[in-house]
């Protein structure tokens, strides 16, 4: 009788632990784009990537469609090249699309905003490994202040 009670309580304990594990994996952790999903790669050259990091989000209109896979310097003209992993769900981005490095909120982390371009006759779709030509670099606060002071002093 005592053993049955102990077995019951141990069973309850294990069930609670499994419930906690499920809660943590399904409810707390993201199941979104985490590398397990199928992705294809796009590349983009920037003048300045600011505080962008590997695994930063790539968003279209605020929706996460991929993550930054790799950041390296082009060894010929020394511009940063950012490789993006985009979910294959979003396959048909036209080659007129543009990317910009944006900041979420005033102090938030930086992410890549992808702006899909218009697609009409004669415009191809971006394939795996293609470069996105139209890029806007990160805003660097020091540069902005410098420009502001420069334009003030000219007045």
């Amino acid at each position, binding site marked *: 009788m005592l053993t049955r009670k102990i077995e019951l309580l141990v069973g*309850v*304990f294990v069930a609670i632990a499994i419930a906690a594990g499920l*809660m943590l994996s399904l409810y707390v*952790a993201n199941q979104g784009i985490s590398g397990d999903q199928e992705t294809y790669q796009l590349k983009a050259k920037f003048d300045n990537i600011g505080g962008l990091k590997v695994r930063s989000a790539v968003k279209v209109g605020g929706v996460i469609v991929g993550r930054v896979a790799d950041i390296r310097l082009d060894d010929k003209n020394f511009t940063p090249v950012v490789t993006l992993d985009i979910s294959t769900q979003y396959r048909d981005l036209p080659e007129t699309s543009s990317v910009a490095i944006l900041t979420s909120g005033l102090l938030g982390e930086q992410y890549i905003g992808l702006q899909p371009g218009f697609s009409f006759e004669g415009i191809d779709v971006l394939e795996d490994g293609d470069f996105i030509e139209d890029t806007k670099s990160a805003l660097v606060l020091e540069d902005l202040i410098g420009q502001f002071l420069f334009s003030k002093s000219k007045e």
Partner: protein
Amino acid sequence: MVNKLISLGRATLDKFAAMGRATYMLFGALIAVPQPIKNTPLFIRQVYVVGVQSLLIVSVSGLFIGMVMALQSYTVLTDYGAEDSLGPMVALSLLRELGPVVTALLFAGRAGSALTAEIGLMKATEQLSSLEMMAIDPLRRVIAPRFWAGFVSMPMLALIFSAVGIIGGKLVGVDWLGVDEGSYWSVMRSSVEFSEDVVNGFIKSLVFALVVTWIAVFNGYDCVPTSEGISAATTRTVVNSSLAVLGLDFILTALMFGL
């Protein structure tokens, strides 16, 4: 001078000898032909003693730690208008650090000391020798089920701790301080990574479970069989396993989340 060196050498040799005995004991207890029918009831009984009976203290501490963390971080985050980051703040600190570490410390105090005292008293009252007289290996009959029970229970307790703590954070943050419920969960979900945070926290708690349970059963098995010896062994269990957990936590964090 020479005497000092001699005592230093003796202390070092004693430490190494103890480590050797601990390893020998662990392998003696674990390397065996599995006998599920005979050993499962022993194991389940120990899971009850070690795991189920620690459930209350672990979940209550988890709840309060989550609540305190939400309360404290809210006051700072609200200065920057970043109350939305309360969810990830609570969830990440619990999953990565506080869940495994605090559970291991509580487990050392609640279950580890009890294991040491129990095994130590068995040794002092010559129950272990009696088992050997009856041709029963005390390592397999007494040590192995306790070790496995601790090793299995503690990661589960750590999971429960983190889950309850996140709920506690939600109670204070959302229901009391008025952070938006949707953003509490969704911002948390967008910054907690399953393979990164949940799995690494779980690996941490597995390592801590191994270390704490090992120290606890070894100190009991190796204690001086007197009442003072048992009390010293119990103290040693709590002190050594707490220090080991805190030190290992730094190393594991540096390996997992460093750079």
